């Protein structure tokens, strides 16, 4: 069953996944190629650090984008037919949802594997300065776990009852709009809800905390 579900998701999201893998290959190659040194003995630390941290941002953006697309693709085929086929299958709904989630997580794993593979190859080909090491496997795991969080959030939202999602989104947008209006007319000093949301999301134990740290291919 899992193979069958995985295959349908692979077929519907294949172009995006292949593109994500290509980008995963391009990021380390481009980063290490543009380093202002010719060999491991001649390097410029600030430029090297800048290049690697920029690549970290690219990895994070790639993880977010891939997670969003894979989550949407997980339900797209079912949603297009009002979930009739899925609901007619002889298995409990929770189990089907779990199969879809597992397949999405596995597909994110292929992009994470590409991140690790291409990162490892690029680092092996680039002359790294002494004391610096490449961590392609660590980066791949971080990429996969990091991508799983937004994937799970979007997946859950799309798996929910559309009416509940509409109510939640409408309530959220209304609250934020009122908050911003109150701040704009000076009733409150700054948008309270927006600040609270940002703090909750990016707190060290928040759902997107992984995106606050650097995703370094090369580190000490």
């Amino acid at each position, binding site marked *: 069953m899992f193979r*069958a579900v995985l*295959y*349908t998701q692979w*077929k*519907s999201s294949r172009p995006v996944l292949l593109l994500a893998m290509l980008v995963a290959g391009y990021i380390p190659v481009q980063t290490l190629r543009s380093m202002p040194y010719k060999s491991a003995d001649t390097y410029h630390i600030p430029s090297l650090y800048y290049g690697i941290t920029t690549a970290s941002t690219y990895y994070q953006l790639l993880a977010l984008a891939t997670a969003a697309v894979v989550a949407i693709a997980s339900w797209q*085929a079912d949603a297009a*037919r009002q979930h009739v*086929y899925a609901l*007619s299958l002889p298995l409990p709904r929770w189990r089907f949802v779990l199969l879809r989630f597992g397949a999405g997580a596995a597909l994110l794993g292929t992009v994470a594997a590409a991140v690790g593979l291409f990162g490892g190859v690029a680092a092996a080909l680039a002359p790294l300065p002494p004391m610096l090491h490449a961590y392609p496997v660590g980066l791949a795991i971080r990429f996969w776990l990091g991508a799983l969080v937004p994937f799970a959030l979007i997946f859950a939202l799309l798996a929910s009852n559309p009416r509940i999602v509409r109510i939640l989104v409408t309530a959220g947008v209304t609250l934020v709009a009122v908050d911003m209006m109150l701040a704009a007319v000076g009733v409150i000093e700054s948008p309270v809800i927006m600040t609270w949301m940002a703090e909750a999301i990016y707190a060290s134990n928040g759902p997107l905390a992984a995106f606050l740290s650097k995703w370094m291919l090369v580190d000490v």
Partner: protein
Amino acid sequence: MSNAISLKHVAYRPSKEFAIRDLTMAVPTGAIYGFLGPNGSGKTTTIKLILGMQEADDGLIEVLGHQIPQGAPQALARIGYVPEKAHLYASLTVGEMMDHHRAFYGTWDAARAENLRRQFALRTEQKVERLSKGEAGKLMMLLALATQPELLVLDEPTDGLDPVVRRDVLSALVEYVSTRNATVLVSSHLVHEQERVCDWVGVMDDGALIAEMPMNTFRSGIKRLRVSGAPPVLPAAPFTLLGRTATAGTEEEWGVRGWQPDMAAWVTAQGATLREVIDLDLEESFVELLSTARSGGTL
């Protein structure tokens, strides 16, 4: 006689405009049950309730001995379902769709699937999204039959198909049912088509089941009488008078249910003359029932 499907006092309101009201219905095991009704009468909604796709607000639904929706997965493993609209994954090919479906059914009969694929002239490499309506209908029937179901639930399976495809689909269905003795619930608004294959009939209108009986009773029991000189008020009749329509002069047409030839004496006893007893085909009977139900008459 046991029932493959049993609904008792089921109520469901999916929207403000439409509701299923106090629906009690029974599909006997082994029957080919024609589920008739005009578009929007609630046939598809009832089918979705039967399959556990939607949850009733009230009442009891039992399918193949399983309570629905709690036992829906166990029941669905023994049901072949062909929905009203194509529900297949567009990105897959015919072969991939068959493999995908097989993964969920331990009862999948690969040989039957392959035979049906050849019989329906479907190519494994054809993309589902490029299938014509007829090809998609045939693929859905193939998937339903290859799981060797004890119960087939077909929602307008031939709607919009050309006569050749319709014949192919129906003959595959009849061949399967005759060899497996499966129960079939087939919904349609194409009344003449039901007449050929069904042995039970249920008529749905505006969210309620207005009649349910063996096809023979339905077909032979509803007649149109041409009567003249009948009094305006009639005493209780030995048949069900569905409706009275004045035609010319003192002549009237009566729609009746449960008519027997010896009841002509009762008509004469009312001072009326029975001029003609007209046999109705299924479609005319269906229309007679619907118009009676809509005018609030006794069914």
